[in-house]
């Protein structure tokens, strides 16, 4: 229980709420972190980060929590980088996150195939200047 609670708060600090979207913890992404093969490949990495948090981490304010995390990022860099990778992996495949990005860019939230993208066709006039250049490849005697 406490582990999950801690992870939720940590995730909310790493990938905080934005616009109408909750933070990564509030989005319920903690559960998928342990299922990431990266976490599997480095067993204990997530727990190492959680264990390094100060006992009163949950009671601290946000800025203080960030400072604790920054300290662990420096001191236990390897374990922390695994946490970041699995957190980003979970966050950036979540449809709610991708829809928010779609709302702000031309990026499309679903998988790239089979829909693809519309794109301006090749414009041959771009070659106007370079096509006037004489061939300059280095000649070689046969």
């Amino acid at each position, binding site marked *: 229980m406490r582990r999950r609670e801690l992870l939720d708060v940590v995730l909310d600090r790493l990938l905080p709420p934005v616009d109408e979207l909750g933070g990564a913890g509030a989005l319920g992404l903690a559960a998928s972190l342990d299922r990431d093969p990266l976490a599997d490949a480095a067993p204990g990495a997530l727990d190492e980060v959680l264990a390094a948090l100060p006992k009163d981490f949950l009671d601290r304010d946000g800025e203080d929590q*960030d400072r604790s995390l920054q300290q662990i990022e420096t001191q236990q860099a390897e374990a922390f980088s695994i946490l970041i990778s699995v957190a980003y992996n979970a966050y950036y495949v979540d449809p709610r996150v991708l829809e928010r990005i779609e709302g*702000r860019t031309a990026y499309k939230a679903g*998988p790239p195939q*089979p829909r693809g993208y519309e*794109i301006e066709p090749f414009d041959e006039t*771009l070659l106007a200047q370079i096509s006037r250049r004489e061939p300059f*490849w280095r*000649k070689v005697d046969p």
Partner: protein
Amino acid sequence: MAAITREPVDVLIVGAGASGAAAAWRLSEAGLDVLCLEQGDWTDHARAASAEPDWEVRRDREWNPYPNHRKLAVDYPINDSDTPILPLMYNGVGGSTLHWGCCFPRLHPSDFRVRTLDGVADDWPLDYFELEPYYELNDRMMGISGIAGDPANPRRAPRPLPPISLGRGAERMAAAFDRLGWHWWPMDVAVNSRPYGDDRGACNYCGPCDLGCPQRARASTDVTYWPAALGNGARLQTSARVVEITLDARGRASGAQWIDTAGNTWHQAARVVILAANGVGTARLLLLSTSRRFPDGLANSSGLVGANLMHHVTGMVTGIFDDDLEAYKGPFAASIFSQEFYETDASRGTVRGLQLMQIRGDGPLGTAIGRYLPQIPWGADHHERLLARLGRTAALTVTTEDLPRPGNRVSLDPGLVDSSGLPCPALHYEIDDNTWALLGYGSERGQEVFSEAGAAEIVTQRLVPGTGFHLLGTAKMGDDPATSVVDRFGQAHDVPNLFVVDGSTFVTCGAVNPTSTIQALALRTAEHIVEGRRALEAAA
């Protein structure tokens, strides 16, 4: 366990990648009985990872180009503790073209004459113009999109397909190259800009070519050469890991021993054996194939099997722009290139040169995690910084000519084995001063052109370790058996019915992506074998 013996074939090919597929097609076209053994399997493009919601995560798992990270049973681990470059490849029908960026430039005429012109390395025993008809044939078979007329290269035939769309980033950069008076041109790419052939559609600009292509627009050889070769009657045995090339009493290749996934051992007899397992896999197999006659590895009387490994050491300069370039649209590695700095220029203090090649942008996860750029930091600013980068980047790779050095090599690792218990390769590689200087020079030119293009921020990585895409030089071609492994047709000096058609035979590597040259050489070798056979038949 005794091997199960199979009836001899005319030609046995090891490896179904870029070169093995091209050779199989040409040989089967001439009516030869061809069998290819491939350790991997077919890819179902209709179920490509790019059609899955978690496609960006899969890019780092089963579709990661680095076999030591991917760790599929069909892969073999590589000890890369003695090299700064991560070796990248894919094992399956199509080989590394299942993963590639599809850029299809050619070597220059000067690349075949570096000893004569610049006093370094060795000249090739053939020249560009001997290879040209095979380049053209290969372009038609693969389906190349591009436009003829590039002043940096010899004239070539009209491209089979018009250029793909460059996208906003490349258009922006092209204008900057123009203002600096530097060369640029749309890259010849193995991606269909229009439908091509019977069942290959046009690119829909989805972005990640490295995850399979449901449109079959990206030319991996499982959708180009293989259907044609199989149609000719060639056979392809998948999940077949070759363990050793076997010899007859006269010291000629008699076939290959291979293991299936159930652990059964087979012997496939053949009149001719062709190795197409890439610059690491072929060297490994030759070194594994020891005998009383060849105690140091097959065809290795020169001692050069495994030596002269070349990669094209690569740097990268990325421009981050204020405006939205929609950089995630379009084939990630294919747009424009510059060969302004391709040739030796004494004033730079270096020999040989480099190519700048533009690549497009990543999706949200790749951007956040920093596949090619520094990671976006976590915390309060994360979301804003992500949006400031997503789709707003353009990058130039700096591909340098990597001159051969005997110490840069593939050997067999004494301890490491693959899933079949077979010894694995170890790579030993050092970047030389010339390459390091070329990387520096190329990075500076990259910065200059990004400044000219108005990039708000420029990030330079002089060396990108995860770029060992090109595996070349480890069974060098030459006329002299004392200083080369194979002759000008890829025929082993020591074993007359053994040929190598992959990038192992490269004498030098220029500063361009190698696959169009690898395949052109494979077609030429195949034609040589066909002609040899015709001559024999005529004599008989």
